[in-house]
């Protein structure tokens, strides 16, 4: 009997030790969260399979049109559009553009109404380094959706 009791307590001890190890392994990761995770605080639903969009995804996910390579990071043309009808009771409320690695991640918040006819914005942004540029579109009925595009920046412009 004694032996069994001892082995049980040994087992619980090992379990507790393993759990403790797991927690201490996770916590430093959270403390040392990379900068880009902070920038990603704002996010939306992404495409489950970017090659085969469901009709709902194709309607909501913003298309980020940006060059593959930018030679001058201080002036990068970008077009973000959402292929969504702009009806009085169902439309895209806003598009938020941000990137992961610049000192100023926000590239503007653009609010629309059905009178716009299309959720579309074209502008020029500053990028510090090669990064992922993301756009978050908010539908008044179906919440936030996220689209992104990668870009290589040869000379940063922040």
């Amino acid at each position, binding site marked *: 009997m004694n032996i069994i009791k001892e082995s049980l307590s040994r087992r619980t001890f090992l379990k507790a030790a393993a759990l403790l190890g797991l927690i201490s392994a996770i916590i430093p990761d959270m403390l040392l969260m990379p900068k880009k995770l902070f920038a990603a605080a704002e996010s939306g639903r992404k495409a489950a399979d970017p090659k085969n969009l469901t009709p709902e995804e194709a309607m909501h996910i913003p298309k980020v049109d940006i060059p593959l390579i930018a030679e001058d990071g201080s002036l990068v043309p970008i077009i973000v559009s959402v292929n969504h009808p702009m009806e009085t009771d169902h439309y895209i409320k806003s598009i938020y553009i941000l990137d992961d690695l610049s000192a100023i*991640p926000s590239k503007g918040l653009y609010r629309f109404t059905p009178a716009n006819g299309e959720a579309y914005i074209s502008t020029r942004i500053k990028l510090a380094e090669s990064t992922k540029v993301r756009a978050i579109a908010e539908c008044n009925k179906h919440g936030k959706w996220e689209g992104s595009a990668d870009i290589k920046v040869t000379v940063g412009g922040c």
Partner: protein
Amino acid sequence: MAIVETQKPKMRIPSDIKKGSIVEIKVKIEHPMESGLRKDRDTKKPIPKHTLEKMVVYYGGEQISEFELSPGLSENPLIGFKVKAAKSAPLKVSMTCSEGNKFEETVEIKVS
């Protein structure tokens, strides 16, 4: 770069607009879009923040869009957006700057 406080944004609209069509309007303004984070290369002094903060679009007196701009945009911003040309009416763009300047311009949209 010094900006002219009384300047008007330049707006470009398509020449021939059909009623009900969706047209792209482009707005250009001269502005440094300074973030306040940069330092002058020679004097090492920080360059004060000076940026456009807001842009509001009115079509026929009604507000149709409100854009919150950020210094993450390039110097001399060029912003394009779309409007459904439902009626002949003035389209007004109003921008405000972090130093309190207001830049406004109106164009007439004539539908055929």
